[in-house]
């Protein structure tokens, strides 16, 4: 055998072609979506008093999935009345009994996990691997975790007793429909509250399917009520006089308007709002894992994540290396049909969101940032946007300041830890941050310096029911998850 020669050392290109192309692998399990859903009030599905329904379409192919009831003020009132009536007995139920309901709900959700995953992907557009491996199991985990708290609330706050607030109005977003439902319902129920919950108008289906789990679990009627609709329905939920607390996850703009609307009412409030998270890469970081963290940080759920690592801050000495590694990595990232098990980046949730992403990307180009998108064929029907990198971004650019909520990464550089911290903190938001370095003491110093509720060191987009989540500054109020999250659903009463 002759001494082998390098084929073409000058090129040094990796070819990610179609030599071994994966065949389509669509998830085939049925989602069992009803043609029409009513409102879930007092343990039953009921027709809306408005007599109106709206279409829920799949962002995957723009096909109609179902008709969803539009709840008006009278419907929301009926939901609050039911929740208020149920509160009397639910709040007096021993914690051990509330726990059993929550454990049962967790188990029933696990039983039907695949069905819920498919429904979530059809309705929201996220890749089936994410709904299957993340959203649904994590939702079940939240119920399981909080179930265990229900009879142990006396251990949470030394010197104080936790008592339920009453009826809680909860409004959840479209990016993690079922998981956000779990984040909201589980702690509220564990602490003895009853709930009126409104899903986002584009993603109501898994919440309504979940109502059937509540029925199967035998949860007393009225403990959880689900009203569907858009902004007006949400306003009715916020402004109802029976609400003891409003818990909202969504945009900062709407969050501020809710805080304003509640002024003078004495209602409690928690907000989980937007972010412009900095993901900071130091030169000594494990670079390949950092690249994975960057990819996961911005392309997980198409970047529809409040804590998405949308601002990449790279130390100058490795900026070129990181950018070229990212470009290579993008070549094996698969964008397309979210129902395909090999899809990494699925469909954008709605036409409106797609329009916003397109507008901000156009703005980035106009402001002089350098755009990179891999060659990838997008499906003809449905809402899709290719993974996008912007390099040469300045702090003043709109793409470095505004939350895009899409698969778009802005890359900036820094030279010293102090500069990294300053740039990271130079925002009205404060939800999360990423820090990548091999030096332990630097991690702790950076973590302390960053104004953010969650700091992921050498990791990104990690979530757990035991880990409190929530932001500083204009990213929100309060925490969800962990023992800290329980306090936002309870009064603290002095123990005599």
């Amino acid at each position, binding site marked *: 055998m002759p001494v*082998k020669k*390098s084929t073409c050392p000058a*090129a*040094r290109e990796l070819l990610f072609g179609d*030599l071994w192309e*994966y*065949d*389509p692998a669509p998830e085939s399990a049925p989602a069992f979506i009803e043609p029409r859903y009513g409102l879930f009030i007092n343990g039953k599905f009921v027709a809306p008093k408005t007599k109106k329904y709206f279409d829920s379409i799949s962002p995957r192919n723009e096909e109609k999935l179902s008709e969803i009831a539009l709840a008006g003020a009278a419907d929301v009132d009926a939901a609050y009345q039911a929740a208020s009536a149920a509160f009397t007995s639910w709040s007096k139920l021993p914690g051990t009994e509330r726990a059993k309901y929550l454990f049962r709900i967790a188990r029933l959700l696990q039983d039907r996990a695949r069905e819920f995953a498919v429904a979530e992907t059809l309705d929201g557009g996220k890749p089936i691997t994410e709904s299957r491996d993340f959203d649904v199991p994590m939702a079940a985990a939240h119920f399981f975790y909080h179930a265990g708290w229900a009879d142990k609330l006396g251990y949470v706050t030394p010197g104080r007793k936790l008592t339920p607030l009453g009826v809680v109005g909860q409004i959840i977003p479209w990016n993690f429909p079922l998981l956000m439902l779990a984040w909201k319902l589980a702690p509220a129920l564990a602490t003895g509250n009853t709930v009126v919950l409104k899903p986002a108008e584009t993603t109501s289906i898994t919440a309504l399917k979940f109502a059937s789990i509540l029925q199967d679990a035998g949860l007393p009627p009225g403990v959880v009520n689900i009203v569907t609709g858009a902004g007006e329905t949400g306003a009715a939920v916020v402004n109802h006089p029976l609400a003891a607390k409003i818990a909202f996850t969504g945009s900062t703009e709407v969050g501020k308007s809710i805080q304003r609307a509640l002024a003078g009412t004495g209602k409690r409030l928690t907000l989980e709002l937007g972010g412009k998270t900095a993901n900071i890469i130091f030169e000594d970081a494990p670079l390949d894992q950092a690249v994975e963290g960057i990819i996961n940080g911005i392309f997980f759920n198409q970047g529809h994540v409040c804590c998405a690592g949308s601002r990449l801050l790279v130390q100058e000495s490795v900026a070129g290396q990181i950018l070229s590694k990212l470009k290579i990595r993008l070549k*094996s990232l698969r964008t397309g049909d979210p129902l395909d098990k090999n899809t990494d980046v699925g469909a954008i949730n709605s036409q409106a969101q797609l329009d916003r992403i397109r507008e901000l990307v156009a703005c980035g180009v106009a402001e002089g940032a350098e755009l990179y998108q891999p060659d990838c064929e997008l499906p003809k029907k449905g809402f899709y946007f290719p993974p996008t990198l912007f390099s040469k971004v300045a702090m003043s650019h709109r793409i470095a300041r505004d939350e895009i909520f899409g698969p778009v990464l802005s890359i900036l550089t820094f030279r010293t830890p102090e500069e990294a911290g300053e740039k990271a903190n130079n925002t009205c938001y404060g939800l999360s941050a990423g820090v990548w370095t*091999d030096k332990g003491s630097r991690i702790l110093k950076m973590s302390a310096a960053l104004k953010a509720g969650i700091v992921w060191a050498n990791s990104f987009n990690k979530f757990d029911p035991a880990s409190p989540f929530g932001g500083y500054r204009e990213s929100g109020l309060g925490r969800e998850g962990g023992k800290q999250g329980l306090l936002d659903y309870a009064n603290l009463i002095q123990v005599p």
Partner: protein
Amino acid sequence: MSTRNFHALRGLLNDVGAVDQVGIDERVAKFATRSIKKNAKVFGLKLAVTMVDLTTLEGKDTPGKIASLCQKALRPHDATDIPPTAAVCVYPSMVKHAAKHLRGTPVKIASVAAAFPSSQTPLRTRIAEVRAAVADGADEIDMVINRGAFLAGELQLVQDEISAVLEACGDRTLKVILETSELETYDNIRAASFLAMRVLRPGDFIKTSTGKTSANATPGNNQVMLEAIRDHFLATGIEIAMKPAGGIRTAKQALHFLVAVKETLGDAWLTNTRYRFGASALLNDLVRQLVKEKTGAYQAPYTFSESSSAY
């Protein structure tokens, strides 16, 4: 350990960069979620067959055992559309027996050599063994690095020994086994990969394990080495090949290893000159799954295995 040596290892680690263990493990878990169906599965299985270094490394190996192994490598199954394997891999004393069956065929003869698996003999003895294997007809030499020297920080010694073996190989392909389980950490595996690659020629291999320790190839150490190969290629243009060995027993595992290759190094490494599986039982399962894909019926394992313990 001398201060100088400590700095040498530290310097190498700094030079090639750190690896985060949890990050690697998460990355490879993603590969395992790839769904390989239909044509892609058949292509992948056949590709894997062509990458097998069909291996027997037992003290009780005989010329007869080698003969049947060679037949199996040449024709893994009656079905003619199942290709031959890349090579057979044997001890040096068995090279001449393998050569009788394989000379003139596409199946290569690989020989472990250089005091495999311990590497604990004088260098001149190891070199002599390599020369003997080459003389007997080995196309490829699988050596294992001096882990003791590596862990003691004597990096120059490790690299010099690789160079010496390489020279003894002449124009034959060299596969450098890192024995990943003894290096223990991903940081060490990455560093050792670079130490070897910096003296290897294009087409030479780095390889995970001897198969003689408690832990062998894993998706994680495979990934660390693939990324090292990629970084070395992008920096120098030199294409180093990769061979995970030991512990890959099922077709499903092999496909996930290949997914890692496809998504880390791309199409150019999806060939048996750039990627191999060191395995003995894997071939049976690959063939079994290929027959299943063809007939649609799940196959019993004993049709495809010589193992007497098959139930």
